[in-house]
């Protein structure tokens, strides 16, 4: 299962953050745990977020299966998931 994990950059609409979450970081982590079905601490260790992004755009990156990334997008506030790519020096 671990080998199926890919890194996704997930874009979020932070004004749709449910008020139950105290911060966007909490919202992101709980949402990932929800789609992975793991307790929060295990989900954090295995799936992330690797980073949360809050200045140039809103969202996070995490290691997910394609099915988990699709599930995440069914939840309010998550608008797009783009698979990580590698770029090269010029």
């Amino acid at each position, binding site marked *: 299962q671990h080998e199926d*994990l890919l*890194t996704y*950059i997930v*874009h979020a*609409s*932070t*004004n749709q953050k449910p008020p139950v979450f105290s911060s966007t970081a909490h919202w992101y982590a709980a949402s990932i745990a929800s789609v992975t079905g793991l307790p929060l601490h295990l989900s954090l260790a295995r799936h*992330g977020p*690797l*980073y949360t*992004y*809050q*200045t*140039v*755009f*809103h*969202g996070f*990156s995490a*290691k997910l299966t394609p099915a988990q990334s699709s599930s995440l997008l069914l939840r309010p506030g998550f*608008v*797009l998931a*783009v698979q*990580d*790519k*590698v*770029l*090269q*020096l*010029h």
Partner: protein
Amino acid sequence: TTHTPVFLHLTPSDGVLPSSGYGHDVIVGVIDTGIWPERPSFNDGRFDEVPSRWKGECEEGTDFNSSFCNKKFIGARYFYKGYEAAKGPMDESAESKSPRDTEGHGTHTSSTAVGDFVANVSLFGYASGDARGMAMDARLAVYKVCWEPGCYDSDILAAFDSAVADGVDIISLSVGGDIVPLYKDSIALGSYGAMEQGVLVSCSAGNSGPSAGSVRNVAPWVLTVAASSIDRTFPAPIVLGDGSSYEGISLYGGMSFWEEGEQLPLVYAGDAALNGSESAYLCETDTLDPGLVQGKLVLCERGSNARVAKGYVVKAAGGMGMILANTFESGAELIADSHLIPAALVSFEDGVAIKKYISSYTSNATASMEFKGTKLGVTPAPTMAAFSSRGPNLLPPEILKPDITAPGLNILAAYTGKVGPTGLDGDDRLVDFSIMSGTSMSCPHVSGLAALLKAVYPGWSPAAIKSALMTTSSILDNTGESIKDLFDGEAADPFAYGAGHVNPTAALDPGLVYDLSVQDYVNFLCSLGYKDAYLQIFTKGKYECTNELFRARDLNYPSFALVFNKDEENVTVTRSVTNVGDANATYTVQVVAPAGMNITVEPEVLEFNEENSILNYKVKFQISLDAQLQSLAGIIRTASTEHAFGSLTWTDGVHKVRSPIAITY
């Protein structure tokens, strides 16, 4: 950087250097492979306190302490979680999990952009002089995102996020990937967020030239930089046994094992194959027969493996030296390398001639090779590097890319202390400064020059700075002729150099600028069909489309790229210019119409009565009657005539505000 400031007419006594205080207190963020902080380019002897607005940090890691940062080099971070998520744990014996640059690229680009003055440097005596970055008094923050496998989007975006939050003014990024939609393009997305907060992002155009449509980093809010030569070379003349001579180039820094002018046996690598290897002509590993190469000069061809690796292969097979011939695509572009054996690169044409000589003389073929050091004042210069990626911009074609060209061929700047200048495992020659080529090298030149303008005009938007650099650039070389293309020796065009070769002295006083707001870029995204989620990821919900009729070609860009569909005969676009010169100014328009095109500008005169006032004009592009008749006859709109180029210039007698025009039929 021992010569590019002179080549760019940057003088300490007047112009943009003293006006900007050498970029005083502008903060340049370089997203790259990190930094070798011990290089004197990053010393802080002349610097006062770090600006209070700086919120960055100097992160510690392997072989990197926070004390390495100083008043010049003010911040360092590293981002590797995307890398490790994809590849597993980093091999920390091979690379440093820290901002330390074990590759060389980031140290080179950082010192090119903002490196301090360092007296009397060279690479094995080549390109000797006093090195200096373009904005010597600007501050530097480095964000390491590139590792052995490359640079991951997730890490790049984390670097953008940090750099903007830290308070950089300019971001320099010499990295790229495949063409993808803007919403999937981490550099487009990160640089959009930077632009929103007033940060100009300068990016390399890519090294996939001369293929058409190869340009990368094409978002209109990015300043996309092509690469060209300077008036300096490193001659390594080659004389064949029949007396014919050829101009090679080399940075070989070791001993020659023969007398000056001595003729040595010469063999074509393709005729010295080991076990019938079909790739021997490329001098790939284990393809050369030592029995046929021993004690000889070997002619290898470019392609597949690294140029310097070919010399290593020749050396391993017992060869005395190498002549390396360009491919057809590389033409007359001479990239200098610090080979491990006596070696020189020659043009494609010269390579063909040498090969022909060898086939004529077979076992009696001989050649001599010499290394003549550094030669300045070469003409013509600049010339476009064949490797520099070309337009048209595929996404979208209504934005002309690249934007500008700058020195990127054979550039000397600071380097890592981890590996030798070839980067090969067997190269244990450690150097403080190295010579590299690529749009990676041209990009930081422009980043540094943008920093100079930012220091002079702190209130200018990224678009205004970009406009000043573009509209004042030059399309002439140092002989007064049109800039040539090293691919084919013909005149280059805006798909190669964009607006032209950067001219920082003129950019200091552009007269007029084409400015753009965030809302303008949002309307541009809307014109591409971006809405809902796709628009949201850029705007973060702060902007909406405000003009449903807006077309990409209406973006107030400092250049024109028009695409005519089959049934279109004319297109009208609008532009607005802001007067940043004297309050009272009268500008008249001058048009050089592309072939087959009639152009009308309305009005033809712009009269300004106050500073920072904005006036609009319309440009009508109409396919000429002659061209229409030819089209009907099937004469034009063939592959060879599908693009045509011209320019539109506003001048008040002092300033020349020139925009290139590219037409695609």
